């Protein structure tokens, strides 16, 4: 039991580093080897995560629709996604004749790369962060907005009016909602005083920001969840890929592995957005501490930090998944009205409130 408690990812990482340093003497080669190992681990982690998220989505959907969900392939249907991925791999990756081939093939790659790049500053556990860049929040915000270029490329290069409509809608949507997302992130940055994700988690040592910052931060949290559901093109904001209206939207013409890459990037985006919400508002890997109660905090520390992080992230993923099966879809002008006339003014007033709160010291 004590072995399990003392296990931490940081010691694993330093052990591997020492092993490799002993074997390889050239420091540049050492760096490259470590980068390759990290890259492969990260990519396989993300793929396994997407399998799990796909399974979770289907089970959540089935639970809400009074049916069972996948339960044949593998024990309790866990291998269903593997079967689906194999099917997508074996399909003919058709490129339409009249499409712009270079852009057509480049679009899914850009989307996946943009999604994966945003994983870098996220802290999965204590001392287990890929790259604690000192502008972490800004980096994540900037990199995840590269995804919209992929969508626009996909829609344009398909040479198909439906795809173009879907891509245009999505471009307008993502660009608008980035403002609300940015403003909610800034409210936490004001309170914690740093853009770096590691510092933000450490500042929640005496309690999570959603509890310390009470009402303005709760408003920020709600706005963040709504706006980021729109950012990742998920229902009820999924008009870019509305299958009842545009038969697939910007990814109508994609088949096989390229389509799988769009799905992959969508799930990775979902994970990133939930991870950022968990890190900024709910404390990341920091256990549930109440400032002042030291013995209570000490008990909470027994649960490993990676479990805290994943529990919070999956809670938010569950909430976002529930939205999809509960609400009808918004029309495109109602979507933009929601952002520009409601969310953005509320966010701006909220920022002023948070600033006043930070200056006066009214937060806990």
């Amino acid at each position, binding site marked *: 039991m004590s072995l399990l408690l003392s296990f931490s990812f940081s010691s694993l990482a330093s052990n591997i580093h020492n092993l490799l340093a002993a074997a390889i003497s050239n420091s540049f080669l050492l760096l490259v080897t470590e980068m390759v190992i990290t890259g492969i681990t990260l990519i396989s982690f993300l793929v396994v995560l997407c399998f799990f998220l796909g399974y979770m989505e289907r089970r959540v959907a089935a639970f809400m629709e009074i049916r069972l969900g996948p339960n044949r392939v593998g024990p309790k249907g866990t291998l269903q996604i593997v079967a689906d991925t194999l099917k997508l791999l074996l399909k003919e990756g058709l490129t339409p004749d009249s499409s712009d081939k270079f852009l057509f093939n480049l679009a899914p790659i850009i989307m996946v790369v943009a999604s994966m790049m945003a994983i870098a500053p996220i802290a999965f556990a204590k001392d287990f962060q890929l790259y604690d860049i000192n502008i972490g929040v800004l980096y994540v915000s900037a990199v995840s907005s590269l995804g919209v270029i992929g969508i626009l490329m996909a829609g344009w290069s398909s040479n198909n009016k439906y795809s173009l409509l879907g891509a245009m809608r999505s471009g307008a949507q993502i660009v608008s909602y980035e403002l609300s997302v940015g403003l909610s992130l800034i409210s936490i940055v004001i309170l914690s005083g740093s853009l770096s994700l590691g510092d933000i988690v450490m500042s929640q040592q005496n309690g999570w920001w959603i509890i310390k910052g009470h009402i303005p931060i709760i408003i920020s949290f709600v706005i963040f969840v709504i706006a980021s559901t729109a950012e990742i093109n998920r229902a*009820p904001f999924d008009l870019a890929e509305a299958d009842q209206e545009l038969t697939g939207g910007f990814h109508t013409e994609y088949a096989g592995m390229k389509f799988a890459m769009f799905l992959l990037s969508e799930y990775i985006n979902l994970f990133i957005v939930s991870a950022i919400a968990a890190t900024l508002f709910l404390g990341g890997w920091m256990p549930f501490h109440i400032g002042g109660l030291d013995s209570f905090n000490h008990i909470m520390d027994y649960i490993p930090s990676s479990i805290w992080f994943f529990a919070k992230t999956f809670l938010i993923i569950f909430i976002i998944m529930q939205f999809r099966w509960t*609400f009808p879809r918004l029309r495109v002008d*109602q979507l933009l009205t929601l952002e520009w006339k409601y969310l953005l003014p509320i966010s701006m007033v909220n920022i002023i409130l948070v600033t006043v709160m930070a200056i006066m010291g009214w937060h806990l």
Partner: protein
Amino acid sequence: MKALIEEDYITEEGEFVINMGPQHPSTHGVLHLKVWLNGETINKVQPHLGYIHRSIEKMSESLSYRNFIFATSRMDYLAAHINNEACALTVEKGLQVEVPARAKVIRTILSELTRLSSHQLWWGCTGLDLGAVTPFFYAFREREAIMGIMEETCGARLTQNYMVPGGVMYDIHPNFQNRTKEVLKQIKDKFQEYYNIMTGNVIFENRTKGVGILSKEDAISYGVTGPTARASGVTCDIRKHYPYSAYDQVKFDEILDTAGDCYARYMVRMHEMKQSVSIIEQLIDNIPEGDFQAKTKNVIKLPKGEFYQRVETPRGELGVYIVSDGAASPYRIKYRSPGFSNLSAIPDMAKGGKIADLIAIMATVDLVIPDIDR
């Protein structure tokens, strides 16, 4: 042919044409709509029909008066009983034969059950078209229960082929009354749930209120019938104005609304479901004893003349017009289908809206394309 294509594509500055259908997840059948768009705003909608034209009218000219009834089950397959009832009533009108009381009540109960199951499917598909996937499964749960009753009594779930000139084909199953009462209880509990899921939802109200307005004069001019017309204020319930079968023995309300938008059409149908439940409740315990079929000759020959019978299907008024010259097959049959007139009003309703509005309009007008194409 070439001239036609060029003429179709004449567009203003900045307009482009997209095709919705014939294969499309939300056109309720094979309907091909050509939509002229300016950005997201619709300038013109032109329907192209005929993808499922099976020439039922010409085919019926070589079928006997007993057989042609069952071709109409495939016309509006969601209301097969009601279509068959219309044809049987027309033939009975021609033969001047009196249907026994038991058969009348059975026909009415089955028609109202069909109306309930058709409105259930409509509700599920409306949710699906607007993006809410969950109501689809909830609606089919109730529909399965009704299909079970149909299967036990009539032998089939979708195209029942149960009505014959003179009455019904065989007597009802002994379980029919109890099973129907259970299903009614199950459905009555669900109306509040339907309200909670969709009707009271803010996003749903924003998508349907003020969308696709059809004025009363336009509704009459386009010949629109059914819940689509009643939502615009036109009173046209055939069950009230020209009662047939056992509708003169029951009390029910005709639901009218004046707004004429998608939300009004939606609410009219939801209230109609409640009225159907109340009609069945009034009849289910009082099925009179007696024959289930009047005696008719084996080979039916209608006398020379013309006969018109109209019934109220879940979509509107279905009219069957038979012209007979005394032979064993009809000389000419014309089906006045409700979807045909309702469809002709859609281009007017959709003009100036967005694509999402067109989907909402088609969902609430409740078209079934085989009914239009015949």
